[in-house]
């Protein structure tokens, strides 16, 4: 009872407001050239604002005179992989293969931008191993592995701790 009543109100308002099919063009054709110009213009202005805000020319990657910030260069290896400029290229080179599978999966459900498990049939094991994330972080993960504590290290430490009182007791 409640549900039918509630659906009624919103339905009635919606039908009252709407006219015709939802799929419709409201204000006539879009001026594509003008739109493109405005888009480029807007991006350029955003970039200029950002340059002024941070005192940095993002196109030439050089600090600007008289900004509020003091800029200091650091080696690319010291920043997380995410921030390295070479990443963009790497992703794009590797993407087509993996992306085709993801794209079709997304198209089927009609939704995008959601991580999903690809169909087992559509993706072979080899292509899974070549997902961009893994390839990029190979160097990084090797380094990490060396630093990471192994579970066996922990056992050794524990053994020592257990052993110590026994020694002192002797």
């Amino acid at each position, binding site marked *: 009872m409640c549900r039918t009543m*509630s659906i009624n109100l919103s339905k009635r308002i919606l039908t009252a407001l*709407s006219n015709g099919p939802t*799929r*419709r063009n409201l*204000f006539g054709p879009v001026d594509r050239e003008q739109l493109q110009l405005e*888009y480029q213009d807007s*991006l350029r202005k955003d970039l200029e604002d950002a340059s002024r805000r941070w005192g940095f020319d993002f196109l030439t990657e050089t600090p600007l005179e008289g900004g509020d910030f003091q800029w200091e260069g650091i080696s690319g290896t010291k920043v997380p992989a995410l921030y390295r400029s070479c990443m963009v290229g790497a992703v794009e080179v590797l993407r087509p293969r993996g992306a085709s599978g993801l794209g079709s999966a997304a198209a089927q459900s009609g*939704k*995008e931008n959601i991580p999903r498990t690809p169909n087992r049939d559509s993706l072979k094991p080899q292509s899974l191993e070549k997902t961009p994330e893994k390839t990029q972080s190979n160097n990084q993960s090797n380094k990490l592995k060396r630093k990471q504590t192994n579970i066996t290290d922990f056992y050794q430490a524990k053994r020592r701790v257990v052993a110590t009182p026994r020694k002192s007791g002797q």
Partner: protein
Amino acid sequence: MELLCLEMDTVIRARPDPNLLYDERVLQSLLTIEERFLPQCSYFKCVQKDIQPFMRRMVATWMLEVCEEQKCEEEVFPLAMNYLDRFLAVVPTRKCNLQLLGAVCMFLASKLKETRPLTAEKLCIYTDNSIKPQELLEWELVVLGKLKWNLAAVTPNDFIEHIMRKLPLPKEKLALIRKHVQTFIALCATDFNFAMYPPSMIATGSFGAAICGLQLDNGDQSLWGDNLTDLLAKITNTEVDCLKACQEQIERVLVSSLREGRRQQQQQQQEQAGPRSKALDELDQSSTPTDVRDIDL
């Protein structure tokens, strides 16, 4: 024993979090920050030259229809309208780009609020392919820049549960009241007169209109007319007079949009049936309700 892996196509949602909903500090924080996300000016007067209030209503109605048809989460539409108003308050826009802007705002709001957001392709189809997905993605960046990437705006919907738990409402009516309040909030978002109101006021006014409209105020004395307004005003620290005015405004908009809908329907029927049914229509029109209490909600 069998091991089953079930991947269903249903939307998985979190349970209501009592830590968020039953903590007074959350409500107070919402009230403190809500003003930050209001459009900076009444833009039809000071920014826009090409577009007019009725065009905002057109694009808003279209957006509401798309959200309903796609079964978006309730807050997607009001949030998208918040983006649209904030953008229009700073960027003079031509009317032929208004639908593109509306689509971009839905795209962003849906991505922020939904586990399965609307796709660019789908939104373009809803514009009858008058825009291309590429253009939508480009303008997404433009809009994001103008909104300064501040997307987590406070909407009237954020207040619903906080207000609801402080009202002495019968448990079995909660779902119905919530639905009506959501509907009123959406209705307010289609009307520019509400664009500059704080979200908490729209939420409180919608509660007033819903409870009054559903005539739930027969039983509990604290839900009678002025008592209800006082109670609601206290919950969100709103001035009683402002709240009353807001609630009356919501009721007027409701009545007039239902009346407008009726008129359109009759027009269509008339076109189909020819001149003979005219007398009947006039009879019908006189029975159109003028008070929210007369409407059989």
